[in-house]
Each structure stands twice: as C-alpha cells, then as structure tokens.
C-alpha cells in the first residue's frame, strides 16, 4: 500500500492565520460572556437548595456513623460557603484537566523515545506543542489555591487540627504530615517546574535537531525522556492525590493515581489525534497516512477501554466491600446534593467508554476523519465530565451545577490551550525533518 504512494514533501510550515486567531478570540469571548452570565446567575442565587438539603439528610442516614461523624461537620460548613466556591471549583477542574492534557504531550514523546518508536516521528510536533500550556494552568492553580483553597480543600482549615477543639478531625490530623499547606504548595511548584523544564529541554533538543541533524540529540532525548518517565511515574500519582483526591480528604482509593493518569492520558491522546486530523483537513501533515491515523485511533480506542477498566476496578471493589468510609464517595455522587451529579456520572461512562468503543471498533473508522473527530470530542468532553464528577461534589457541593459558568470556563480554557498549541506549532517545521526515525515513519504501513 505504502509502496504505491509517493511521499509528500516534508517541508511544511504551519501558519497561525489571522482568521484562526480571530475565531479563537471570538470563541474565548463567547466563553467569557458565558462565564459572566454564569457568575451573575450564581451570585443572585440559583434555586435547588431546598431539595439538596433533603437529599443530604438521606445520605447521612444511609451511610450511618461514618457520614454522621465527620461528613456532617464538613457539610455544615459547606452550607455557608459562598457562591464563589463554584467559581474556584470550576477553575480548578479546568486547570487540573488541561494540566493533564498538556503534560501528556510530554509523556507521549517520552515513551515514544524510550521505546525508540519510529512511526510517531512524523506528527511528533503535535504532542511536543502541548506542554507549553503548563505555566498557564500552573499559575491559575496556585492563584486559586491561595485565594480559594479554604473553599475547595477542607484540610486547609487549621481548626480541624486543634486537639480537643470542636472541629477536631482525627482522620485529617493523621494525614497532616502529607496534607499541609507548605508541603502541598511545594509539591505543586515542583510538579510544574519539573514537567515544564524537562519539556523545554526536550523541545530544545528537537528544534536543534532540525538544524544540525545527527543522532546525538536523539540519544540525549531518549535519556531525558526516560528520566521524565521516572519523574512522571511518581508525580502523576502524587499530583492526582493532591489535585483531585484531596478534595475529599477523608476518602482514599489506592487506584486513584492510575485512574487519573488513565483519564489524562486518553484525553491527551484524543487531543493529539484531533489535532492531527484537523491539521490534515487544513492541508498540513500530508505525510501522515492512513496507517498513522489508524494507530492513533487504536490508541484512543485502547486507552478508553483502559480508563474504563481502572474506573470499574475502583468502583467494583468499593461497591462490593461496601465500607461506609469508602462507599460515601459513590453515594454522594448518586444521591447526594439533590442527585445533581448522577447525570454527569453516567454521561461520563457513556462518552468515555460506550461511544468511543463502539464507534472506533471497526478498522475503517480509525482513519475516517469524521468518525475520529466524533470519538475524540466525545473523549475530550467525557473526561472533562470525569474530573467534574470527581472534584465538584467535594468542593462546590450543593452550589454546583452545570450551566453557563461550566461551559464558559471550559470554552475559555479550550481556546487558550489551542492558542498556545498553535503558537508552538508555528515555531518550527511541522515535520521534524532530521529525526532519525523519520524515514521509518514516512513509510509506516500496517496494511
């Protein structure tokens, strides 16, 4: 098949056209307008609180003493949190999600280097462009933590550590060695600095390689990529505990690191695939053939299943064992807060598993642009919902909802992310022309 094709030119410059910039600005403005509307609605007080209170009582009754003990204290506090919490929580959800997508770009390059993979060389610039967004999300997360940390994270309240005090919380006191503000902020800064600067270095190697060629920079990239995988192997888990699991500080799951990584990873792969497809539709990346697209489609297909596998493994153990301190997590999402999280909970499963699984199953669908786009958008929105259902109940709780505020923030983040990616793609030849594996990649053929 490949032998019959002629290989298109590898000299390609991506142009971030003024039209594209205008569209992104319009998109961002629409998002911002939705945010303003959402903030106004939230500030003037949306209804639904009465029902939520009733449901709360039910949850506490069902889960018995574990809920009645510390959860009641937590909920009592949530009731007088301001509508601002919903805004902080939204910023946090999006920032965590896009941090993950960005860092998965680096993750993808790294494991491709470690495996000395050849096929991916031709579109390597796409994942390479993703981590440039890390400083943005990093700064947003730090600011949100300092301004809204008390609203989002129950463990940041000092009174829960006062022995004998009315708010004293034995469980949180036991976790204080790990969950305390200085260590938390230190870890957060470390994650972003390590991820970002390792990416900067590998990006620099890649751009230099475009000028001088040779295999020396390739070998260096393998070493750096391997080092990143070691760093990310630890930090992906710890950041998942910090960013997502610590929103519900009493609850824990030993699968959570994997679960979050699976979520980030498949979302990142969907972004890579979607970007490749969209670049091809705009006349770029002609050297990407149907075999590359099929392999990318398989990646999205396979890791959708992987995410579901981890999600289900976590769910089944908790469901089966039915321990109050564990099952509260799912009870809260099913029946808590007026059942507002029940729909996102099931929509997540549909968008992240059933739809990509059925749509990407056949061979031809994996290189059909329209089907790939549907599957990728499904995964991208689905995993946003995944982080939403993980973070919102423990932070915004009753004040949460799904309206203009949520859509607005999500759209603003998408536009910002695309802008950052396009800026990076413009900086270099779209195909790494001196990558040692490029020849293999151009002839990639899985028949």
């Amino acid at each position: 098949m490949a032998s019959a094709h002629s290989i298109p030119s590898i000299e390609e410059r991506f142009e971030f056209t003024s039209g594209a910039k205008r569209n992104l600005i319009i998109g961002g403005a629409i998002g911002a307008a939705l945010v303003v509307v959402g903030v106004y609605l939230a500030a003037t007080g949306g209804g639904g609180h009465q029902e939520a209170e009733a449901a709360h009582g039910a949850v506490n009754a069902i889960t018995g003493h574990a809920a009645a003990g510390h959860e009641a204290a937590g909920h009592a506090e949530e009731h007088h949190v301001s509508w601002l919490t919903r805004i902080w929580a939204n910023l946090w959800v999006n920032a965590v999600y896009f941090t993950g997508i960005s860092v998965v770009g680096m993750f993808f390059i790294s494991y491709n280097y470690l495996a000395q993979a050849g096929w991916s060389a031709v579109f390597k610039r796409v994942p390479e462009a993703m981590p440039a967004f890390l400083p943005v999300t990093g700064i947003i997360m730090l600011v949100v933590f300092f301004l809204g940390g008390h609203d989002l994270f129950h463990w940041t309240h000092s009174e829960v550590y006062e022995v004998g005090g009315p708010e004293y919380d034995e469980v949180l006191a036991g976790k204080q060695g790990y969950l305390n503000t200085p260590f938390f902020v230190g870890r957060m800064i470390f994650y972003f600095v390590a991820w970002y600067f390792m990416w900067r270095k590998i990006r620099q190697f890649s751009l230099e390689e475009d000028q001088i060629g040779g295999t020396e920079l390739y070998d260096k990239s393998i070493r750096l990529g391997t080092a990143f995988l070691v760093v990310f192997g630890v930090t992906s888990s710890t950041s998942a505990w910090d960013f997502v699991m610590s929103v519900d500080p009493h609850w824990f799951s030993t699968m959570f690191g994997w679960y979050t990584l699976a979520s980030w990873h498949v979302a990142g792969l969907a972004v890579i695939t979607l970007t490749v497809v969209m670049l091809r539709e705009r006349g770029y990346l002609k050297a990407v053939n149907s075999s590359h697209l099929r392999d990318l489609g398989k990646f999205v297909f396979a890791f959708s299943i992987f995410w579901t596998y981890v999600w289900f493994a976590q769910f089944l153990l908790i469901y089966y064992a039915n321990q109050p301190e564990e099952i509260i997590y799912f009870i809260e999402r099913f029946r808590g807060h007026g059942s507002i999280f029940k729909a996102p909970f099931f929509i997540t499963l549909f968008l992240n598993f059933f739809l990509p699984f059925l749509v990407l199953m056949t061979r031809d669908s994996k290189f059909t642009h329209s089907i790939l786009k549907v599957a990728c958008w499904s995964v991208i929105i689905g995993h946003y919902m995944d982080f939403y259902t993980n973070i919102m109940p423990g932070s915004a709780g009753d004040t949460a909802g799904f309206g203009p505020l949520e859509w607005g923030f999500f759209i603003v983040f998408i536009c910002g992310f695309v802008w950052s990616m396009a800026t990076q793609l413009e900086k270099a030849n779209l195909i790494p022309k001196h990558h040692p594996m490029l020849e293999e990649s151009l002839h990639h053929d899985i028949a």
Partner: protein
Amino acid sequence: MAELSGKYLVGVYDDDDTVLHAVPRLRKAGVKIQEVYSPFPIHGMDDALGHPRTRIGIAAFMFGVTGCCVALTLMIWTMGIDWPMIVGGKDSISLPNYIPITFELTVLFTAFGMVTTFFISNGLSPAAHKHERFDVRATDNKFVMAINLGRNSMSEDEISRALRDSGAEEVNIKQF
C-alpha cells in the same frame, strides 16, 4: 480458500521484495494470480494481490456478543432466577458483580471462535489434507506464486515468460 483443481503454473521466488514487486507487474500484464505463499507475512501483499478484506473481524464481533449473552444468561438464570442468591448484601441480579465474568466469557468466546474460524476457513486443521502444497519450500525459504491456468485467458508460454521476467527463478507446473 478456493477449490484447488486444474492446472497451475507455480512461480518460485527467492526474495520477498521481488515477489511483492512482481505481483502488481504481473497483474498489470493481465495475469490473474490465485495466491502467493510465503514463510512470513509480507506487508502490502494483500493490497497488491487485490484480495478482498478478511471478514474475521465481523466473526469476532459475533462471537463476542455470543459470549456476552451466554455469560449474562448463565449468571442471571443461576444466581437470580433458578436459585436466587444474595452475595455481599447485594440484589440477586446486580450487574456490577456480573461484569468481570461477562468480560472474561466475551474474550474467551472471541478468542476461541476466531482461532477456530481462522483454522477452518484456511484448511489448516492437522486432519485436513484439502490441498497439496504448491511447493513445500514456501514454508522455509521460498516465495511461491500460484496461477490457475484455467482462469487465465493468456497462454501457458506467455505467463511462464512473464513470471521469469518478473524475477521468478523457477516456473513449475502442478496438476491437481
């Protein structure tokens, strides 16, 4: 696998690349090739030969659906209807509990079904001697092209010459 009967011209090649390039050349010249036998899969050969795509994927899906249904029926019947059982305080019929076994039986049915289908449709069972091999060296170090003369309008000489021109080192005649 098409029935093997009639007179065949068998081209023997020494190199996978030669045979891969010979196929489109011969087809362009008007030769109808029945099959190419090779000790290992040659990338791009299916497309070069113009074979219709395998339908084993459809078979796999059917086997998978069968396995899924068998598993669910088995568990719902035995655990929920025939002798209702409560395990871990859950309902007798509780879907989350059934998912691991459903998954396993789906995979099992798919795998066994696909392998069986593949062996049967290719006549690969140890008991099946449906056809003689065109050239036993195709399982070792040679690449063998089979051309059914009955299905070709070109003469034997013409095809034989075309085979040699395309790089065949031997051209043999086989009669079944």
